[in-house]
C-alpha cells in the first residue's frame, strides 16, 4: 500500500454554478521513502494540490476526491483536531518564500520549540529545556553555521538560505513520513538553491521519508526525483519515471518544457519558449487545455478533451502521444492542422 494514495482529487473555487477548477481529477501515489517531482508552469495547480492534501484549502474552495489516504488513514474523514495532529507531524510542508513564511515577531527558537510543544513526544512536550536542546540539534542537522547563536535570531536577521534551512528544521522536527516542498529553492540564489536541494535529498535519504518536490525547474526534478508528474492547467498531462520521461517525453507539453531549458538552446540566439499563457478561469478552451498552445493541435484536439491513459508507470493525456523520436503518433497527420489565422 502506498504511503500517500490520492485518486480523483478536485479543487474548485468560485460559485457552484460557474466553478473554477484549479485541480482537476489528479491521481497521486507516493511510496514511503520515494521522491516524486511535480512540475508545471505557474498556475498549473501544483501548490493547490499540495495545500488540498494538507487540508489547508479555505472556504470558498471545495476539495473532493474519490480517495485520499495517508498511511492507511482517510484524510477526507479526519476531524479538524485529527488533521492538526497529523499535519505538521507526519506530513510536513515547506513553502516558497522562506523569509515571509517565518513569523517576524518571534525568534527562531520560539517557532521551533512551538512545533515541538504541539507535536513532540511526551518528554519534549513536558520540558522546555529538552525542547531547546532539540531545537539546537535540528538547526545543526540542517547545517546552519553557528546554530547556537541563530536560536535567538529573529527571521529578519537571517538570509534567505538560512531562513529556508530554519523552515526545513521546523518541518522535520517530528520526523515526518512525507515532506512536501513547494518550490523550496525558487526564491533563493542559484548557489544556495543547490545547497538547499542537496540538504533536502540528504535528509530524505537519512530519514527515509518520502519527498514531494513541487517545482517549475525540470533540471531539479531530473537530478533528484524518481518519478515525475507534469501538470498543466490543473490537470496531470504526463506521469512517468525519471529519467525515462525526460529522455522520451510523450506529451507535447513535456516536450515543449524540455525544449525551453536553456541548456537545450545553446546554439540559438533566443531561447525557445512556449507561446501564450496557462488558461485562466475565463478562457478555458473546450477541447484539450493545451490545444491553443500546442504545436501539433488538430481540430479533434480543439473539440474533445483527451483522458489520462496508460499504465501506472507511464501515463499521458494526449490523442497523439509522441514516439521516441518526438513525433506525434496514432494517425496524426500534419495536413489535419488548419492554417493559423
Amino acid at each position, binding site marked *: 500500500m502506498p504511503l500517500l494514495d490520492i485518486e480523483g482529487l478536485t479543487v474548485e473555487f468560485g460559485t457552484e454554478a460557474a466553478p473554477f477548477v484549479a485541480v482537476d481529477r489528479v491521481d497521486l501515489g507516493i511510496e514511503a521513502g520515494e521522491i516524486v517531482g511535480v512540475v508545471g508552469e505557474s498556475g498549473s495547480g501544483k501548490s493547490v494540490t499540495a495545500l488540498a492534501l494538507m487540508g*489547508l484549502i479555505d472556504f470558498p474552495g471545495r476539495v473532493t476526491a474519490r480517495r485520499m489516504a495517508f498511511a492507511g488513514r482517510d484524510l477526507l474523514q479526519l476531524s479538524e483536531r485529527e488533521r492538526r495532529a497529523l*499535519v505538521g507531524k507526519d506530513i510536513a510542508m515547506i513553502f516558497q518564500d522562506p523569509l515571509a513564511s517565518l513569523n517576524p515577531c518571534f525568534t527562531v527558537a520560539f517557532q521551533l520549540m512551538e512545533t515541538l510543544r504541539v507535536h513532540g513526544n511526551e518528554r519534549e512536550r513536558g520540558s522546555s529545556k529538552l525542547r531547546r536542546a532539540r531545537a539546537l540539534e535540528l538547526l545543526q542537522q540542517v547545517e546552519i553555521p553557528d546554530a547556537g547563536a541563530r536560536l535567538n535570531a529573529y527571521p*529578519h536577521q537571517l538570509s534567505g538560505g538560512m531562513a529556508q534551512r530554519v523552515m526545513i528544521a521546523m518541518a522535520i522536527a517530528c520526523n515526518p513520513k512525507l515532506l512536501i516542498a513547494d518550490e523550496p529553492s525558487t526564491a533563493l540564489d542559484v548557489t544556495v538553491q543547490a545547497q538547499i536541494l542537496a540538504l533536502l535529498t540528504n535528509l530524505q535519504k537519512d530519514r527515509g521519508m518520502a519527498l514531494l518536490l513541487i517545482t517549475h525547474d525540470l533540471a531539479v526534478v531530473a537530478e533528484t526525483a524518481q518519478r515525475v508528474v507534469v501538470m498543466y492547467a490543473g490537470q496531470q498531462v504526463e506521469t512517468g519515471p525519471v529519467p525515462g520521461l525526460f529522455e522520451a517525453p510523450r506529451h507535447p507539453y513535456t516536450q515543449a518544457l524540455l525544449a525551453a531549458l536553456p541548456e537545450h538552446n545553446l546554439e540559438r540566439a533566443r531561447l525557445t519558449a512556449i507561446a501564450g499563457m496557462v488558461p485562466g478561469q475565463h478562457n478555458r478552451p473546450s477541447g484539450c487545455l493545451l490545444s491553443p498552445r500546442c504545436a501539433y493541435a488538430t481540430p479533434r484536439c480543439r473539440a474533445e478533451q483527451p483522458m489520462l491513459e496508460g499504465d501506472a508507470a507511464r501515463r499521458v493525456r494526449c490523442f497523439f502521444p509522441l514516439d521516441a523520436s518526438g513525433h506525434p503518433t496514432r494517425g496524426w497527420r500534419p495536413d489535419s492542422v488548419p492554417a493559423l489565422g
Partner: protein
Amino acid sequence: MLAFVLRRIVQSAAVMAVVALIAFALFNFTGDPVASMVGPEATLEERARLRTELGLDRPFWIQFGHFVGNAAQGEFGRSLRQGRKVSALLKERLPATLELSLVAAMLALVVGIPLGVYTALRRNTWLSQLLLAGSLIGVSLPTFLIGILLILVFAVILGWLPSFGRGDTVALGWWTTGLLTASGLKALILPAITLSLFQMTLIMRLVRAEMLEVLRTDYIKFARARGLSDRTIHFGHALKNTLVPVITITGLQLGAIIAFAIITETVFQWPGMGLLFIQAVNFADIPVMAAYLCFIALVFVTLNLIVDLLYYAVDPRLRIERAAAH
C-alpha cells in the same frame, strides 16, 4: 536606543517651544492687557507704570523667555475671571479629565480589540455584520449627539444613571477620585461610553482590517501547515503582528480623547479641564486658555514619545534596524 530617545526628546522640545509661542501670542494679539486691567479714566502715567511693573515694555523675546520659564514650572499667572492661580485651577480639574479619559481609553481597547478580532475571524456571521454596521454609526455620529441620546435614555427615561456631574469624590492627597464611590462610578458610566464610542469603533475596524491582512500572509499559512491550533495562530501569531498600527492609533487617540473631552465634559457638566477651557473661552480668560493649550500639547508630545518606545517592545525588526543605524 539612547540616541533615538534623545533625538525624540529634542524634537518634542521644539514642538513645545512652538506651541508656547502660539500660547504667548494669545496675550499679545488679543488686545492690550493694560487697557483691560485699568479703568478708562486711568492716566497715561499710570498706564506706563503698570506696563513697566508687568514687564510689558521689555523686548518681545525677553517677555517670551519669562513666559516659557514660568510655564516650565507650571505657572501661567492668574485667571482673569476667577482671580486664582491658573496652575491651581488646572491641578484641581486634572484628575476629573484624566480619570474620564483613561477609563474611556481602556473601555475602547478592552471592547474594541476583541470585537475587531471577532469580526475578522467570523466574517460572515450576522453578529459580525451587525457589529460592522453598528460601528459605522459609532464612527459617524457626533459625540454630543451620542451623549444627549444616552442622557435621554438612561438618565431621563429610565432614570438609572445621573445625567451630569461627577458624583462624590474622595481626596487622595491633592488628587480627587470618583472611582472609589458608588455615585462617582455611576456618574462615570455615561460620559466614559460617550467618549470611548468613537475610539472603540475605530480600534475595532482597524484591528479587523489588520487581522484580515495578516491572516493572508505566508507565515500564517506555514503556521497552519505546522498543525498549530487556530487559537494559537489567531491570538499568538496573528494578533501580535497587528499590534504596531493599533498602538500608534490608540496612543494618538488617547491624546485626542483628553483634548476632545471638551465636548463630552460640556454635555455632562463634567468638572474637568475641558469644561474649564470652554468657560475660559466664553470669558476670554487668556491665561487659562494658554495653559490649556500648552498642557494638551504636552500630552500629545509625551504620548507620541511613549508610542515610539512601545514599538520597540512589540516589533523586533525596529530594535535591530535602529540599533544598526546608530
